[in-house]
């Protein structure tokens, strides 16, 4: 089962959104208002296997939470990911595992210097 990744970022339409630089290979961008991140799974997401996310945020944004749920099934993951800052607005989220095929909604919570949280969500569909 491979990541098909149907992205449906919540784009607020702001022309002033920060960007975390040119997109890296196979990275996916999620944007909400003036906040944006890019993420790349490692390894590719497979049902029942742990994976990590390499995440790059806009300068000054701090990643504080990563989580995922299956809205149709009304459940989340069985695991609580940990976040490791790598410096230069890069982060590694470890311990994610999608245990069923179907639509998962990934949520990234970031905070800027003003401490205001931003939630960025995107869909990942596993066949």
């Amino acid at each position, binding site marked *: 089962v491979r990541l098909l990744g149907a992205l449906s970022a919540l784009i607020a339409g702001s022309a002033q959104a920060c960007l975390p630089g040119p997109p890296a290979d196979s990275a996916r961008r999620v944007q909400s208002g003036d906040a944006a991140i890019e993420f790349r799974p490692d390894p590719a997401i497979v*049902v*029942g296997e*742990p994976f990590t996310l390499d995440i790059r945020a806009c300068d000054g944004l701090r990643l504080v939470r990563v989580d995922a749920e299956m809205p149709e099934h009304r*459940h989340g993951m069985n*695991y*609580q990911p940990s976040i490791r800052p790598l410096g230069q607005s890069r982060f590694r989220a*470890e311990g994610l595992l999608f*245990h069923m095929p179907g639509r998962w909604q990934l949520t990234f919570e970031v905070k800027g210097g003003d401490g205001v949280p931003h939630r960025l969500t995107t869909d990942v569909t596993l*066949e």
Partner: protein
Amino acid sequence: MRFLLALLLGAMLAGGCLAQSFEPAEVQRILQHGHWPPPWTPDPSNRASGNPAAVELGRRLFFDARLSGPGTLSCASCHLPEQAWTDGRPRSQGQELVDRNAPSLLDVRYRRWFGWDGAADSLWAQSIRPLLDAREMAGGAGHVAAVVRGDADLACRYRSVFGAVPDDDDAALVGAAKALAAFQETLVSGRTAFDEFRDALQRGGDTAYPEAARRGLRLFVGDAGCLLCHVGAGFTNNEFHDIGVPFFVAQGRVDPGRHGGIQRLQQSSFNLLGRHNDDPGQATATRTRHVALQHRNWGEFRVPSLRNVARTAPYMHNGSAKSLRDVLRHYSEVDEDRLHADGERLIRPLRLTDRQIDDLVAFLETLTSESVVPQGDPTPCTP
């Protein structure tokens, strides 16, 4: 001529002779359940994994009743080779009648969590649990260590795998458990009629796969939604769900399932975060490090593999379903009021017809392989 062809076609349809073909999306879902067997990789948390000397030591320990406190029960008392490595009882009989059904050990090497509640995160840690449990083998670390130290052949085999039997009873117990795990890793089931069909589909071909099994397979990957949890080559997502089986054990006593399992896992000195894990990078401990204890874990139990399921009755964590038909009737008529109001929305009554139940059973029976009974090496150990 046209009349004859139409007559022939009508007769074939009436007799069900035309093989059901699958849509591309169905084929894609079917292919997810293979290839079987998966490639062999050793367990990094167990330095004895794949070591033939450890396998033989583990085989001998597995059938040795001296490991139990009273000397009356071995691992094989509840995991009988001739019964697909289970015991055929609803709930197993150790020193006492326990609360749960003995799961088959076939393909246990491919699990990620062990036991119905996943209280163990490795096969060797799971092998320790019944040895110590007072209701099961009631052995104790000191007892198991003494049996190994006191038997010249076992001690010789232990030395050849791990070095001298350590004075530390817990360490000696872990060595014995890792040998037991090395043996159980060899219990890999063989290929099945489903595997032949699945691989033929992958090649764009077909096999003489029974028509009822095809209809059951279509339901399995389609409307019945079985593959949401029974997915992958092992027909399990290796996780836990509440399927509405009552978890009351006796009046005033419940089996907490995964909720209790996570708590026991986190308290165990034998989990993969501890000193007995042989994996230096501890990548094997990722799940253990991140598993989350949640209220919905109450009443959740491990999703069993369906390989050889027709040989492992009775079913469910408490053995409450006597037959595969009983299991399917449970899913057909599941009591939604029993499920947590705040739980996941996965289970709904399937309202299966008798024919659909027959078809699903026909499919599940095609997941049966030949018996697996490894032969031991009778050669005595030479120091």
